[in-house]
């Protein structure tokens, strides 16, 4: 079976490679000479004495799907609203495609927004909601009809064109809102928590659809979300925001595997953090003596730090292996008691208490149907991991 499927897969891959429209977005941010499409240049926004956005400079490139990720009050929505023109920055400039946006009102910007509440006009049908923007451009009747039909078919809402928004389900409204924001073919589409109001299953389906649409139309997307899972699946790059500042920008993989601070490490996914002191600091590895972990921790990357500096080692729960027998390694090894097990179906989450009282979270994939008996409540187990599993964080 598997061998039969392989040729088909490679075929479709070559297909997408030939079609420039469906090709994955060029990773322009890796090219130092690439011209950014959206530029935030020292943007600050103050509301009274509260600084919502604090001196942010950020470049976003054409055909990116950029996610601004942060908790509530992190300033991510304010940043988006400044792009749309609903708020004016207190200082700094925003450029879209090289044009300074200062003083340009929302109705003259080459930008459309999909609102968190969808903001569909309740007095207009689906069709008229979508046509609303085109009518304002004074487009001819026939063209409006054609464009509306096209975009509604794309989001699979063509059959419900005559309905009013209140006659639609949440997922259907979301599609209409997306169609309405895309129909004017903006250079830049802003999405404010686009999937927030959907249930989990619908959200997963829609995520992939959004990505397909983005690739199909070649529009640049900027998505605001507080949901790290959503950001991880959707984004070409993620900007993590905290208290009005961007704390890290990078591809999802980088953000997850190489967080640059304890904040980012614990905001994205779950993580175990061990405090310790650097004892050996070489170019290719460091050794940290951690009382919290109850032993020596070895990490295969160098850091720049003072000797005996206090650092944190971040370790993701899925990178830890559990065993009953003592593993053949004297670093990156801990011993503890299984205190709690949560069965999640695809994996199980273990809470393990070390002798010094520190609690460690470990996830193990359920690779066989019946692994219940392997580790159980009260078992004493060894926890161990590879030198390339953890990262050292100095801030």
């Amino acid at each position: 079976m598997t061998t039969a499927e392989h040729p088909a897969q490679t075929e479709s891959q070559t297909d997408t490679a030939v079609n420039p429209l469906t090709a994955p977005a060029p990773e322009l941010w890796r090219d130092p000479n690439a011209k950014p499409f959206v530029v935030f240049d020292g943007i600050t926004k103050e509301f009274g004495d509260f600084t919502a956005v604090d001196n942010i400079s950020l470049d976003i490139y054409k055909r990116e799907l950029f996610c601004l990720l942060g908790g509530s009050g992190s300033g991510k929505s304010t940043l988006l609203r400044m792009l749309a023109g609903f708020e004016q920055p207190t200082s700094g400039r925003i450029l879209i495609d090289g044009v300074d946006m200062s003083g340009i009102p929302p109705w003259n910007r080459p930008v459309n927004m999909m609102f968190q509440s969808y903001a569909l006009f309740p007095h207009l049908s689906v069709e008229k909601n979508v046509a609303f923007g085109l009518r304002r451009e004074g487009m001819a009747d026939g063209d409006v009809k054609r464009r509306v039909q096209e975009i509604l078919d794309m989001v699979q809402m063509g059959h419900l064109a005559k309905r009013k928004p209140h006659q639609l389900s949440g997922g259907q409204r979301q599609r209409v809102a997306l169609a309405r924001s895309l129909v004017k073919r903006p250079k830049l589409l802003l999405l404010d928590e686009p999937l927030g109001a959907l249930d989990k299953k619908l959200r997963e389906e829609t995520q992939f659809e959004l990505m397909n649409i983005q690739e199909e139309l070649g529009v640049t997307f900027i998505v605001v979300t507080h949901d790290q899972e959503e950001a991880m699946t959707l984004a070409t790059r993620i900007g993590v925001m905290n208290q009005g500042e961007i704390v890290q920008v990078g591809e999802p993989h980088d953000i997850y595997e190489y967080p640059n601070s304890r904040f980012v490490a614990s905001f994205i996914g779950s993580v175990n953090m061990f405090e310790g002191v650097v004892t050996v600091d070489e170019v290719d590895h460091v050794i940290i003596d951690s009382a919290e972990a109850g032993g020596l921790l070895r990490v295969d990357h160098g850091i720049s730090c003072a000797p005996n500096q206090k650092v944190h080692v971040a370790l993701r729960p899925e990178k830890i292996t559990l065993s009953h027998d003592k593993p053949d390694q004297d670093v990156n090894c801990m011993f503890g008691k299984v205190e709690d097990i949560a069965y999640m179906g695809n994996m199980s989450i273990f809470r393990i208490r070390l002798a010094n009282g520190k609690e460690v979270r470990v996830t193990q994939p359920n690779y066989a149907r019946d692994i219940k008996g392997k580790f159980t409540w009260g078992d004493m187990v060894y926890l161990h991991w590879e030198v390339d599993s953890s990262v050292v964080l100095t801030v």
Partner: protein
Amino acid sequence: MKKLTAASLYAGKNRLMGYLARHKWGRKVVVGIPFVWLALFFFIPFVVVFKISLSESAIAIPPYTDLFSWDVEDAYATLKVNLGNFLFLLEDSYYLDAYLSSLKIAAISTVITLIIGFPMAYLIARSEPRRRMFLLAMVILPFWTSFLLRVYAWMALLKKNGPVNDVLMSIGLIDEPLRILNTDIAVYIGIVYTYLPFMILPLYAVLEKLDNSLLEAAEDLGCRPFQTFFLVTVPLAMPGIVAGCLLVFIPVVGEYVIPALLGGSDTLMIGRVLWDEFSKNRDWPMASAVATVMLVVLVVPIMLARNRMGNKEETY
């Protein structure tokens, strides 16, 4: 024999509740109370008025003839229905003029009230919550003083050597005092002033609920502010606009005090005609006929508005 236990009592109570719920008794009571109220204090009095309008004026107490008479000796019952009052309404153009003039004054003042009230309601609804309460209180505050008193105050304000003329003259806009009091202008000022809160409150109620993101969405899709206003704000405020207009229009048609105190001798309004028939001429049947026709004239616009709203609801 079945013993009466707590359980069976409970079951009995449940059965009763079930019966009440099945036949929607709660709903019937809630709807029934205002229904009975309206029947007692609106419908029955109206039937009485209608009955009087079909009788003839007489010098008696009460000053009209009976519709029914019963001759005991001959066992002869008579029903005397007099349509003369209604015919007279059509014959004498005075009444038709009064109706038309009332409708005109009511329509114009409704439009003026809407034009003044809408921006006020909009600004109140858009202001920050703490100020909103203060501003609303300011709108309602006049109700705390007597309506009559306020109309008298306008008489003082608008008279020839009153403050309004003084101010207009001192800023050099006019050379000699204007005659405002006892004209239609004074009537419009009085009506608009008095009925403005009835326009503002329903408008405020809908505008306060207006989702700001809808206005932003309109701007985002290319609407200039005035387009946003007419394409989004006004359609969504329509229930409030209709309610406010009805609340102003209907009572203004029958308004008596304001035209009587502020209007001139040529300000013709049906409320005044009605009062004159009733008290000066002591012609109760004629006054009743005028009142009956006024009600019919008012019911028509209400039905139209209701129909419109009903249709809206369906297509929503």
